[in-house]
């Protein structure tokens, strides 16, 4: 069995509620910093959803001191690049920079985050550009599917909206809303991560930077928004613009990531559809060639996780493929796992964990994620160790314990134009459309 090493990763407290993660290892002269804030888009009022995403986009458009191009050139001169991203419950900013320029890059980063110009003309341009980009994102079926998930799974709740909001809500955003929103986002408690050859060398600089940030923006006590339950029994379908291929997602609620059996649930999913040897992939791709991409994933959440199978079958075979996926799932949960197969699954899954922690930067990102979820950084090697100790009856038992395979599914599909629907009636009891519950016919 693969042993995941005890990586050179450590957690240090910072004044107040902030914390710092140090990750050491080969970094080829680059230092990577991530500042992860415990606050996301789900706390935004429905009428201005997307506000944080717009504010973060506007950071690139310049500060009071430096217009857009001067700012980007200043970072690039240091060999630095930035990335910002908003999620429903968090947001982060990433900085990678040549090690010798870290101090200058940190100064720039502070200006970038706390002194953005939020110019009204630039905002108008950002919003127009976003509308045009949103249209472009819908050119392929998977892009359409990605936008459909929120409204189907969490209809009528704060989770309904994609983190970048909707066209109508973004149009309501005014320049004067951005600075207060940014202050609110920066005021959330944060975890700062450092990945470098010797991260301890930079700990003082990063801790000092966090202290400066907190002088400008003290920690607020914003409430964490809880994710609502997933709406089951729904079907949603949309038409693609062209092509012959569909995009399909079949999903179901799964237990909380804080559940005492979470490790076993993770392995249960891995055994079903996360590698080429699994029954899902063997059946859908190996035996019948129905889809090039196929796999099952478990999206963790502390309230309620999401189990999902995604694939891209030919439009005319979408209903049949959905039926095959569900059949594979139902057969899987009815059949006890063997010890031999589980050992193989464990090895594969531990291999994926090892690969995901290959670089010093990846390890830092994961450790930050663990700390944000109030878990120790040692989860990097303790989680795999616990997985490796699970036995087949325990993992198989997850199916009956949580009713896997017996509950309602959510079907979301993007179907090509001109593809007739008789397959859906043949394998299910209705046509897929918004809000209709499909029952699979045996």
């Amino acid at each position, binding site marked *: 069995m*693969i042993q995941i*090493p005890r990586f050179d990763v450590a957690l240090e407290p910072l004044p107040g509620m902030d914390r710092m993660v140090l990750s050491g290892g*080969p*970094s*080829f*002269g*680059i230092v990577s910093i991530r500042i992860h804030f415990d606050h996301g888009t789900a706390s935004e009022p429905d009428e201005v959803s997307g506000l944080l995403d717009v504010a973060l986009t506007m950071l690139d458009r310049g500060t009071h001191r430096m217009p*857009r*191009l001067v700012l*980007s*050139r200043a970072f*690039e*001169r*240091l*060999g630095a*690049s930035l990335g910002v991203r908003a999620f429903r419950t968090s947001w982060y900013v990433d900085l*990678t*920079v*040549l090690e010798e320029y870290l101090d200058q890059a940190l100064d720039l980063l502070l200006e970038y985050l706390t002194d953005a110009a939020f110019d009204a003309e630039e905002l108008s*341009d950002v919003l*127009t*550009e976003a509308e*045009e980009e949103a*249209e*472009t994102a819908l*050119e*392929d*079926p998977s892009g359409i599917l990605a936008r459909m998930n929120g409204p189907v799974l969490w209809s009528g709740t704060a989770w309904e909206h994609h983190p970048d909001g909707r066209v109508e809500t973004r149009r309501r955003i005014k320049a004067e809303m951005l600075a207060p929103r940014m202050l609110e986002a920066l005021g959330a408690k944060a975890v700062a991560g450092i990945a470098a050859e010797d991260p301890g060398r930079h700990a003082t600089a990063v801790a000092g930077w966090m202290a400066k940030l907190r002088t400008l923006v003290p920690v607020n006590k914003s409430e964490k928004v809880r994710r609502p339950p997933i709406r089951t029994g729904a079907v949603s379908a949309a038409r*693609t*613009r*062209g*092509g*012959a*291929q569909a995009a399909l997602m079949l999903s179901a609620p799964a237990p909380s990531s804080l559940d005492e059996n979470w490790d076993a649930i993770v392995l249960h999913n891995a055994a079903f559809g996360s*590698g*080429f*040897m699994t029954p899902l992939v063997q059946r859908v*791709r*190996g*035996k*019948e*060639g*129905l*889809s*090039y991409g196929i796999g099952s994933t478990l999206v963790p959440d502390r309230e309620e996780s999401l189990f999902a199978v995604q694939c*891209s079958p*030919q439009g005319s075979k979408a209903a049949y493929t959905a039926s095959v996926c569900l059949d594979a799932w139902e057969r899987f949960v009815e059949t006890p796992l063997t010890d031999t197969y589980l050992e*193989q*699954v464990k*090895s*594969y899954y*531990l*291999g*994926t964990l*090892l*690969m995901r922690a*290959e*670089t*010093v930067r990846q390890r830092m990102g994961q450790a930050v994620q663990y700390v944000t979820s109030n878990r120790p950084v040692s989860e990097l090697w303790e989680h795999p160790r616990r997985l490796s100790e699970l036995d087949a009856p325990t993992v198989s038992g997850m199916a009956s314990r949580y009713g896997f395979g017996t509950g309602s599914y959510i079907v979301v599909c993007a179907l*090509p134009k001109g593809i007739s629907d008789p397959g859906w009636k043949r394998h299910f009891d209705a046509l897929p459309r918004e809000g209709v519950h499909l029952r699979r016919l045996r």
Partner: protein
Amino acid sequence: MRLNRKDSKFEAIRLGQLQNGLSYALWPDSRDAVATLQIWVSVGSRDEANGKTGLAHMLEHLMFRGSATVPDGEFDRRMESLGAQVNAATWLDYTYYTTTVHAAALPEVLELEADRFAHLLITQEVFRAEREVVANERRQVVESDPESMMMERFYREIYGESCYGWPTIGWSDDIAGYRAEDAQAFHQEAYAPGRLFVSIAGAVDPSQTLALLERTLGGLTPRASVRPQREVALSESFCRTMTLPVAAPRVNLAWPTEGRRAPSFAVWCLLHDLLSGGDSALLPAALEVNEKLVLDVNASQYDHALPSLFEISATLRQGVGPERIRQAVDAVLMKLAASGPTEDDMVVAKTRLRAQDALSLAGTYARAEDLGESWIAFGDPLAGLRLRDEIVAVTAAEIRGLAHRMLHELPRYELVVLPTGSDEEA
């Protein structure tokens, strides 16, 4: 062979050739948590024939579907049981197979690799199922993606009937038409040890790994397999328009380059960074920020071994016509041709490249890939690492000269993509 660099970590790279003609490079680093093994085959879609396009890619899929000694499904099961993450890719000039795994599992991984390279067996049942997978892949990755449809057409227009003119995944009719025997014969012809290169990067002991290589892939029977010479016929300048279900029009401009083996390659690389290596590079600064003409603009430097391409592509903002983009791109090139990049542009571009370079070498996969790509393109695994030094040595005068050639000497290819049903289409 030694690198012309002071950095000692590159001096650890060991190169050589086994007795059966297979070449290798080992890049050990005991600090890595894993190792990546890649097997590069000097066969790509350029080695196919009209009517059998996509065969190299089809064969890549079939390599995972069993051999005379390992039944269908067993390769994946055994690899995954070792915790290995496997993948493969085919492109114009090459096919490669990659495995990232904890180093202790390398012996079994290499046994499995040697087996499929020596004893691939393609049954009719497996072939039929895998052909469906490939047909689905084509519909998903190409036919449902306007960007891919556009590039397929662009390459067809530029390279015509010659070997870069057909898509690596193959035309639909060809995928439907070839047989298991075609793939088996293609394997026998092209997968000879002399056309293989193995790169291994990560936590490995060089001496033990070399012994392992000799014991496994060293057992492949040597046989004559000479890569056929292929000519690439490039089109004269053209300007074409096509319609696709896109939301916004695209403009693609391309120029032929001499390919990776030519001395000019380093100059093209630096030009690429100067034009679109960062938000403040010349093209985004002019077209996206200052003039607000495009949603995005990018330059791409393709590294095909035969005459290659340098491409500039842009997605247009509403109300902007293709002609305006041509003018704006030409204005950037004319300025470069007249006065060259500023000293600041040069310093920033080279700094950006240095940082990107360091980031790109952080993982074992990227290091193994660097060695393999260089072997395919230059016949020398270390050429990619040397290229970095060559780029640093490029002068502003060379950039000026290249911009002048793009404007006045080289053919220019242009493909405009309009949304289906747009006024201009009518």
